[in-house]
């Protein structure tokens, strides 16, 4: 799985950090998303899917089958 985040769309809601803190963080300067693990480990993937699905800004995209 490959994760991408769109900083311009991010509204700093912090949902992704609450759900998958190993994969997402927020910048100290403005609360905008920081991607910690662009290729999350297998046991983190379901949390990452949940984070992407609930992101209020639709700022997280997933590639489930990267080539």
């Amino acid at each position, binding site marked *: 799985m490959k994760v991408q985040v769109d900083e311009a769309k991010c509204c700093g809601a912090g*949902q992704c950090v609450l759900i998958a803190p190993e994969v997402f963080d927020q910048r100290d*300067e403005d609360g905008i998303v920081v991607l910690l693990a662009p290729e999350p480990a297998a046991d983190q993937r379901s949390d990452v899917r949940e984070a992407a699905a609930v992101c*209020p800004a639709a700022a997280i995209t997933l590639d489930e089958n990267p080539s």
Partner: protein
Amino acid sequence: MSRHDPDIRLPLTGDGPLEPPAEWQRLRERCPMATAELPSGDKATYLTRYDDVKSLLSDARFSRPTATDNAARIAPDGAGGPAANGDTSLAIPDRGEPHQRWRRQVGKYLTAKRMTALRPGMVSIAESLVEDMVEHGQPADLKAAVGFPFPVYVICDLLGVPAEDRDRFSYWSDAFLNVTRYTTDETRAAHTELNQYMATLIAAKHAEPGEDLLSMLIAESAEEGEGLSDDQLLHTGVALLVAGHETTANMIGKMVSMLLADRTRWERLLADPSLVRTAVDEALRFDANLGFGLRRYLGEDVDLDGRLLPSGTTVICSMPAANRDERVFADPDEMDLGRSPNPHLTFGAGPHSCLGQTLARSELQVVLDVLLRKLPTLHLAVPARELQRVEGLLVGGLRTVPVGW
């Protein structure tokens, strides 16, 4: 029905105090862009489908109407209080790039990491409120004993308001928002006193900075030279209180009521407290008493799902109706405490989605954790159908939540 008659009159109410209005389902099915008459007599387009509500709320072109927008009013002039018709503050930029800058300046104090750091403080506030409630004996009103003071105490800590001023703060906040319980004069006086208090507080933080949000914003302004003015700081503090007090206070009461109305829900949480996180979001989705929804004034034509909404239209986005949309949520009328993912729209969506949502989620999770741990035998002291809604237009809730344990 002629073309000019409204399809519905707002507000809609459900049969029982926790039930959604039956019309939502019909509107989503047959009339997803209904013409609604508001209590002011003005007309607006009422959206009830998930995709429509989400797409309009996410549209960066539109924001909450301002006084100059000529948008449909919710309440008749003067009857809705200062918060009803969008005139809270001109000091905080409400759209475009300046809005985003303000949001990011304040938002960095409301990140998930910071809320996690605030949690131990929240837990001790919740524990002491629950202990006080138990000491006063049962039945008790959970809303007055816990739901109402808890979020205001948390915001006071966040802003650096000394503990001895919490209850005054709490009163002002209530009088400012609760237009049914207070007279216009009382509301106005509370507004003035709160502003004066905030101005004094900001001056004190200039003189002697602490670890709180206001002090940090002040320090930053000094460093960068283009931070928030004192006027903006004042309105930011008031905005946090307005946005974060009554809403969370009511949500605590509604969440606990929904969980206790069917005790199997409460028991499921007792058996597996790890469900608290998803249970809180499910309570947020399931809440049928979220109030009117969010207004948007369309300054240009909008194509929504193939239909034209002309420029000049006022739209009411019903998040609670969208949260029950069967196109998105399986078994939408079931409260499923493990529901995941749960992309409900209770906090809005897009560039204006609730800035304090992580704070609100943390508060609700803490209160629920503490109640499950300290009062596992908690139950409603009246039948759920006898709970009564508050009559306000802005923030939906229950008047009291009588409980025993």
